[in-house]
């Protein structure tokens, strides 16, 4: 994980994107709602900078959600998923204390994995 820099300007230029995800997993009855917020620019490759230059595509392509190591969701994304994506799912079975692991891979090969505990 990239540390936040000491100098306020150092984290410029698009390198500060792989910030931690925010994962929330809450059980009600026998269903667990899993919500994931990912920090990612999701650049389509069609947006232009103010100088007219195209910003290259940069987006999450696949992600995986597992509960106690067992995959519950396999996801694929195109560049049209909104910037800083949000996903919400429902899974039957998980209990408080179970471990939820989310990982994503983007088109440039960058990856990130975060964990949370079911509440």
């Amino acid at each position, binding site marked *: 994980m990239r540390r*936040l820099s000491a100098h*306020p*300007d150092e*984290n410029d230029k698009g390198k500060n994107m792989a910030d931690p995800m925010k994962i929330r997993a809450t059980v009600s009855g026998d269903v667990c709602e899993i919500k994931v917020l990912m*920090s990612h620019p999701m650049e389509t490759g069609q947006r232009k900078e103010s100088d007219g230059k195209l910003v290259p595509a940069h987006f999450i392509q696949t992600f995986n959600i597992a509960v106690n190591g067992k995959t519950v969701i396999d996801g694929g994304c195109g560049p049209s998923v909104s910037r*800083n994506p949000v996903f919400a799912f429902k899974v039957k079975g998980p209990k408080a204390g179970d471990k939820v692991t989310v990982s994503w891979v983007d088109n440039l090969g960058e990856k990130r994995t975060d964990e949370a505990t079911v509440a």
Partner: protein
Amino acid sequence: MRRITALCVAAFAAASMPQLAAAAKTPKKAATAASAPAPEAKDAATADFEKFRAILEEDNPAELFEAKGEDLWKQKRGPNKVSLEQCDLGVGPGVVKGAYVQTPRYFADADQVMDIERRIAWCMEKLQGFKHEDLVKKPFSNPNYTPDLVSLVTYVAAQSRGMKVAIPQKHPKEIAAYKIGAEIFKYRAGPYDFACATCHGEDGRRIRMQQLPNLASKRDAMRAYAGWPGYRMTGGLMHTLQWRMNDCFRQQRFPEPGYLSDAVTDLLTYLGVNANGNIYKGPGIKR
């Protein structure tokens, strides 16, 4: 010719001649235009927006910035390698809870009224040793960059979730900030003759589909105060009220207000005090 008229006008403006006083008693309503304004009843589109507001708020990426801000607040940073945990945001050194809803306020150590962003910057300078020039160089979020101050403000604001807005009006400088803010709010100038009040001085108006809060009224001032700092869907960027004021002046076709300047703090005091008494729900999501 123009010059003469301006002086002539000044004469009228200052005059207390009886005929003018009489004329002033039967004022023409300023907004009276060619015909009656379009009905401002809540239209279907607005109702539909509101239906989806709850989901958008539930899924608000502002949480990502809140988490980042918390990290920044607690880390030892800057040339002095200290955290911000001794920063006094007006409710005691290190106290974050409730600080957002009680600023702008007067700070004796700075002998100034400061809004939250200005105060956090002040702490970054005085406690952590950051240089002022570096803090104000690139103050606003862009697609490649979120200033640390933006994340910090988001974190601090989130710690006032569910609390009542209670911006003090005790110190003479707090009172002056409010009154000057009110005047800046009304000041018309620029090529389009716009003031803040041109768009934000009446209830129930819209620009395009966008509802315009009337910042002079209690209920609407809260609508404007609420949801900032906000995650803006346009561009997907986190912004603070400092940015909101800046971009309003851009749209107003004014020159640029200084970041963390008195002018902006005064406006934020006006807005914030008008929202006093309402419950703040934390960082929001904006169009």
